[in-house]
C-alpha cells in the first residue's frame, strides 16, 4: 500500500475514531490500556454475545498511532469469535514485531506494516491489541 494512503487512513481514524465514547452498560467488560513507557491512557469496553465480540468502544487520551490503531482494531474485531480475534491479534503482533505474518488476514491494520521503522511507536501500535488479547485469554 502506498504510504500516502496509509497515512490518510491513519489520519482518518485518528481524527474521526470509530466507536469513541464509553457507555454505562453493565453488559460491557471494562479494561484499561495504559502505556507504561509514555502517556497513552485509554479505556476500552467490550461486549460479548456468547462467543462473539458484539461491540467494543473506547475513550481517553493517546497519541495518533495508539488512537488510530485502536479505532481500526475495533472495526476489525467486532463480529469475530474469540478464537478468530485471538488469531487476528497474534497475526498483527507478528507484523509489528517483524515476524512472519499473513497480510491477507489483517484488513486495514496493514497500514502499520512499516511501524517497525519507528521503534518508539511499536508499543503505541500494540497497546489496545494486547489488552484485548489479555481479556480474551482470560475469558
Amino acid at each position, binding site marked *: 500500500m502506498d504510504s500516502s494512503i496509509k*497515512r490518510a487512513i491513519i*489520519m482518518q481514524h485518528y481524527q474521526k475514531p470509530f466507536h469513541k465514547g464509553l457507555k454505562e452498560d453493565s453488559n460491557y467488560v471494562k479494561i484499561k490500556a495504559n502505556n507504561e513507557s*509514555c*502517556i*497513552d491512557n485509554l479505556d476500552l469496553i467490550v461486549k460479548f454475545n456468547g462467543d462473539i465480540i458484539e461491540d467494543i468502544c473506547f475513550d481517553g*487520551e493517546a*497519541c*495518533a*498511532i495508539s488512537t488510530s490503531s485502536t479505532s481500526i482494531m475495533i472495526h476489525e474485531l467486532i463480529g469475530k469469535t474469540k478464537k478468530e480475534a485471538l488469531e487476528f491479534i497474534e497475526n498483527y503482533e507478528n507484523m509489528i514485531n517483524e515476524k512472519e505474518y499473513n497480510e491477507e488476514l489483517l484488513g486495514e491494520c496493514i497500514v502499520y506494516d512499516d511501524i517497525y521503522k519507528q521503534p518508539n511507536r511499536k508499543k503505541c501500535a500494540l497497546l489496545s491489541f494486547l489488552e484485548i488479547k489479555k481479556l480474551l485469554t482470560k475469558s
Partner: protein
Amino acid sequence: MNIYDDFPMLKKGYIYFDNGATTFKPQCVIDSIKEYYENYSVNAHRGDYTLSLKVDTVYEGVREKVRNFINAKNSNDIIFTSGTTESLNVIMFGYVKNILNSGDEILITKAEHASLTLPCFEISKLKNAKVNYIPLDKNDLVTVENVKRSITPKTKVIALAHVTNIMGDERPLKEIIELAHQNNIIVVVDGAQSVPHVKIDVQELDIDFLAFSAHKMYGPTGVGVLYGKDEYLEKVTPHNYGGGMNNDFSSDVSMELKRLPQRLEAGTPNIAGVIGFGSAIDYISKFGMDQIRDVEINLKKYALSKLKKLDNIEIYNDNSVGSTIAFNVKGIFSQDVAIYLSKRNICIRAGNHCSKMLKEHTGVKNTCRVSFSFYNSEEEIDELVKALDNKNILEESIM
C-alpha cells in the same frame, strides 16, 4: 573557552532540550570517573594502604565541594545518596515520619513531582496524618499569602520544590521558610530543578532539608545529595543499616552507630559517581551560577519571543523564570509532537513529567517541555522554531 568542545554528546548531531530530565556530561567528568577506575579503583573508608587513603581524600573532598557549593555550615551536613528521590525518601521516612502524630498535616502543592508527593502520601497513611495543598494562584504560582492561609496549628511540615519541573516557577523560599519557622514548621526543599540553575545558599535561605541530584547538573547518574541542618540530620533514622555506618555491634543485638555523615551512608558508596560529581561542581564553578542563570534566562527569552510568533503554539509558563517552556501544538497530542521533533533529531519531553496532580489545577493533562542548559544556543532554538512552524506536524509524526 568553548563550551561546545567540552561535551562529547553535543557532537552527536542532536539538539538536546531535555536538560530538566538529565544533562550531558563534560569530558572532565567522564575523565575523572575513568581515572578512578583506571588508577585508584579501591574502596573508601579503609585507610589501610595508600591507594585507599587517596580514595578517602578525594571522596571527602567532594563532600567539601558540595558544602561550599550550597554554603552549608559543615561538610558533615552533606549526605551522599543515589539521587533526589532517595534523599527525599530518607527525609520523609527517616525524619518527617518520626515527628508526625495522628491528625498532623503536611503541606505540599499540586505541582510537586512524584518523588516528593508519594513519600508524603505514604507517611500520611502510616501516621494517619493529612496531606493538604497550598492553592496555586491563577498563574500556577505559590504565594506567601496562600502559604499563610494554608498553615494550621496542625501543620508540621511544608515540602515543596524550589523550582518546579514543568512550569519552572521559582518559589519565594526565603519568605516561605521564615513564615514556616515562625510557626515551628520544618521545610523540606526539592532542589532537583533549582540547584543546577540557581545559586543556592542553604544558610541564607535557612533551609531545613534540601535534596538534589548530580546528573541534572552535569554529573553522573546515581548520585544525589541530602542536606540537612545538624539538629535534624542527627535525628534521622537510617534508611540502610550495614557496613561503614556502625562502630560496633554484638550478639545481644546491640549496636553503636557512627556519627554523621557515615551513619547515613551504609555500604560501599557510589565512589566513581561522587568523584565525577566533584568534577561537575568544579566545571560549573568555572562559570559561576550567576552566569549560567543569565545565559539560560536569555535562551528562554529568545525562545519565547520566537515561539510566540507561531499561531499553532500554546505556551503555559511564559512568566516563570526557570529554564523550561511548557507548551502544546494546538490540536496535537504532546507525544506526537515529541516524536515528530525526534525525527529531526530534536529531543524534548512530552507528558505529565511525573507531576500528575498539576492537571487538577491547570486543566492541561499533558504538555511538551523544552528545558534549557547553558550549553544550548540560539541557533538550536531557531531549528526548533523552524520545525514547529509547520502545518503538517501530525501527518509527519505518523510516518
